[in-house]
C-alpha cells in the first residue's frame, strides 16, 4: 500500500476515521518507506518495533473511541529531542551512547495526541549548520538530487539544520517531522525540499528535553507537506509547560480553524531591505509573484522598512555562539556520552571535548567563549544584544502598518554538497532572510511557491506578530493554493 505514504496528514486522519486502513497498516507502509530512503541517510536511528507497537496501541484507542488529534500518524523526530530509551545524538560524537531517561515535552505532547514515532532523523551537529553537512553521522542527501538514487550525478543538500526531517518528509517516508529552528533551521530546509515548515513564536513550544543550542532563540516546530498538516501538528506540539521557564501560558488555538482562505483587507508588509544586492532574478520573481497572489486574494501589499536587517546575521553570530558556548559546557565526559581519558581532570575534559565536537561546533564554541571573555563582553556580546533590541523594535514598528510580512525564505535554491564549505560566512548567508525573525522571536513559516530554473523548490516566508501563527498559516495556505506546486522529488518512497 505505497499510496499510504503519499497521503497528507489530514487525508490520513480521514482514512483512519473511515476505517479505510488501520494505524498499523499506515505505519507498516512508512516503516518500509524509511528503509527505501536509506540512501538519503535521513535517519540516524530507525525505531520500527516501537512504531508498530505505538500503531497497535493507537488502533486500540481509536476502537475505544479515544482517538487524539494526531491519532495513528507516523512521524519522524529530529534527533535533538530527547526520547526515553531511544538514543539521542544531536548528530554529535560527544553524545555517543546517550539514551535519555526522560521524554521531551514536545514529543510527549505528540504521543499524547496519538502520533507514532518512526525514528530519529539526522541534523547538523547540535543544529549548527544550514546544509546538514556537519553531522557526525554523515551528510543527508536531498531527495531532489538529480540522477539515480545512491548514484546521483549531483548530491544536493536538503538544507539545515533540520535536514533529515526535511528529506524524510519530502521523500514520503514520514507524514511529518519535528524540527527546531534557531536561525532558520526549519524554514530554510523546508524551502530547499519543497515542504512546509513553521517556527512558532518563541515560547509556544516547550524547550524542555530539547538539546539546547542557543536558548534565547531555539524553538521547535512542525515540518509537513501541506499548510493544513502544519496546523494539525503545531497544535499538538504547542502548549504551556511549567518545566520551561520561557514557556508562555497562553491557550493553544485550533490552528486548522484559522485556515479560512479569507485574507481580504489584510495588509502584507514587503520589507524593502530584503531586496538584497545580488539577489538572484528568480528569487525576486517568485517574491513578486507571491505579492501578486496575495493581491488577487484581496490583501493589500504595503512597503515597510526594517532598517537593521543588514545587521541581523552579525548579531546572530555573536548571540548564538555565546549561548552555545555556555550550553555546551555540560559535555564534560562525566555525565553522559563520550569520555576520552587524560592524565588529569582538565586533560580529560579537553581530550573529550577535542575529540567529541566537530569543526563547526568547535568554531562556534570558541567564538562564543571569546565574545563572552573578560574585556570583550561589552564590545561584542552586549553590543549584539543591543542591536537585537533594535531589530525587535523594527518589527514592532512594521507591525503597526501591516498584519503579516512576506519575504523569500532563502537566497537561492539548494546547492550541492561541497559548495560553500570553505568559507563559513558564505554558509551563514543562507540564513539572511530567516535570522531577523528568530532574533525578534516571531513566528515564521516557509511555504512552497514554485521551482527555479534548475527545477528545484523555491519557498516564500511569512512572518507574523508574536503569537499570531493563525494569520501566518492562513496567508500561507493562500500562497500554497495559488502556487499549486506539483513538482515532486525525483526520489520518493
Amino acid at each position, binding site marked *: 500500500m505505497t499510496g499510504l505514504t503519499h497521503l497528507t496528514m489530514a487525508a490520513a486522519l480521514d482514512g483512519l476515521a473511515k476505517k479505510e486502513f488501520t494505524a498499523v497498516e499506515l505505519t507498516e507502509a512508512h516503516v518500509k518507506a524509511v528503509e527505501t530512503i536509506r540512501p538519503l541517510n535521513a535517519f540516524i536511528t530507525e525505531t520500527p518495533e516501537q512504531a508498530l507497537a505505538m500503531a497497535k496501541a493507537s488502533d486500540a484507542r481509536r476502537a475505544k473511541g479515544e482517538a487524539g488529534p494526531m491519532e495513528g500518524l507516523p512521524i519522524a523526530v529530529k534527533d535533538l529531542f530527547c526520547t526515553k530509551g531511544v538514543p539521542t545524538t544531536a548528530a554529535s560524537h560527544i553524545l555517543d*551512547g*546517550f*539514551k*535519555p*531517561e526522560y521524554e521531551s515535552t514536545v514529543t510527549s505532547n505528540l504521543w499524547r495526541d496519538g502520533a507514532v514515532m518512526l525514528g530519529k532523523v539526522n541534523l547538523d551537529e547540535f543544529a549548527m549548520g544550514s546544509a546538514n553537512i556537519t553531522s557526525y553521522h554523515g551528510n543527508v542527501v536531498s531527495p531532489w538530487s538529480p540522477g539515480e538514487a545512491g548514484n546521483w550525478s549531483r548530491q544536493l543538500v536538503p538544507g539545515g539544520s533540520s535536514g533529515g526531517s526535511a528529506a524524510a518528509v519530502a521523500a514520503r517516508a514520514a507524514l511529518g517531522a519535528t524540527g527546531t529552528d534557531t536561525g532558520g533551521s526549519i524554514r530554510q530546509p523546508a524551502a530547499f525540499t519543497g515542504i512546509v515548515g513553521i517556527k512558532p*513564536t*518563541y*515560547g509556544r513550544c516547550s524547550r524542555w528535553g530539547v538539546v539546547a543550542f542557543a536558548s*534565547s532563540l531555539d524553538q521547535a516546530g512542525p515540518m509537513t507537506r501541506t499548510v493544513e498538516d502544519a496546523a494539525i501538528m503545531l497544535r499538538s506540539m504547542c502548549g504551556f509547560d*511549567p518545566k520551561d*521557564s*520561557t514557556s*508562555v501560558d497562553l491557550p493553544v488555538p485550533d490552528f486548522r480553524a484559522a485556515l479560512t482562505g479569507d485574507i481580504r483587507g489584510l495588509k502584507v508588509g514587503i520589507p524593502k531591505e530584503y531586496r538584497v544586492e545580488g539577489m538572484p532574478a528568480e528569487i525576486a520573481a517568485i517574491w513578486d509573484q507571491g505579492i501578486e497572489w496575495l493581491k488577487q486574494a484581496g490583501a493589500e501589499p504595503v512597503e515597510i522598512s526594517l532598517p*537593521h536587517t*543588514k545587521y541581523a*546575521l*552579525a548579531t546572530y*553570530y*555573536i548571540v548564538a555562539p555565546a549561548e552555545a*558556548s555556555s550550553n555546551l559546557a555540560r559535555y*564534560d565526559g*562525566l*555525565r*553522559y*556520552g*563520550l*569520555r576520552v581519558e*587524560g*592524565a*588529569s*581532570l*582538565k*586533560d*580529560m575534559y*579537553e581530550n573529550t*571535548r*577535542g*575529540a567529541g*565536537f566537530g569543526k563547526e561546533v*568547535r*568554531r562556534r564554541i*570558541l*567564538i562564543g*567563549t*571569546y565574545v563572552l*571573555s573578560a574585556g570583550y563582553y561589552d564590545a561584542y556580546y552586549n*553590543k*549584539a*544584544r*543591543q*542591536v*537585537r*533590541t*533594535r531589530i*525587535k523594535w523594527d518589527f514592532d514598528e512594521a507591525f503597526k502598518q501591516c498584519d503579516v510580512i512576506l519575504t523569500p525564505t532563502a537566497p537561492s535554491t539548494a546547492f550541492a554538497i561541497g559548495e560553500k564549505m570553505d568559507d*563559513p*560566512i558564505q554558509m551563514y548567508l543562507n540564513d539572511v532572510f530567516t535570522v531577523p525573525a528568530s*532574533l*525578534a*522571536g516571531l513566528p515564521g513559516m516557509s511555504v512552497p511557491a514554485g521551482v527555479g530554473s534548475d527545477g528545484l523548490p523555491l519557498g516564500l516566508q511569512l512572518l507574523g506578530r508574536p503569537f499570531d501563527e493563525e494569520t501566518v498559516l492562513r496567508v500561507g495556505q493562500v500562497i500554497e493554493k495559488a502556487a499549486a506546486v506539483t513538482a515532486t522529488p525525483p526520489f520518493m518512497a
Partner: protein
Amino acid sequence: MSLDKATVAKIAHLARIKVPDDELDHLAGELSQILTFVEQLGEVDTQDVPPMTSVAAQTLRRRKDEVTDGGYRDAVLSNGPETAEGFYVVPKVVE
C-alpha cells in the same frame, strides 16, 4: 579584529577543548574572519538601547521552593561513562 595563534590557544583552553597545534593557524584565520564580519555592528547607534534579555515580554514565573520530584539516582547515573557506588568517577584530582 585579527586573532593570533596564542590567543586561539588561550580561548581553546578556556573552552576546555584540545586543539592540535597544527590546526591553530587555520582556526585563527577562520575566527578572525568571523570577528571581522561581526564588527560591522559598531556602525549601529545603540546609545540608551537596553540589551535584550528576553524576546517574549514576560517576567519569569516564580514557583514555590519545594521538592516536587526526585529519587532517580540510578536513572541519573545510567548514562555516565564511568560510575561506581552511586557516584560519577573522575580522574584523581588530589595527590
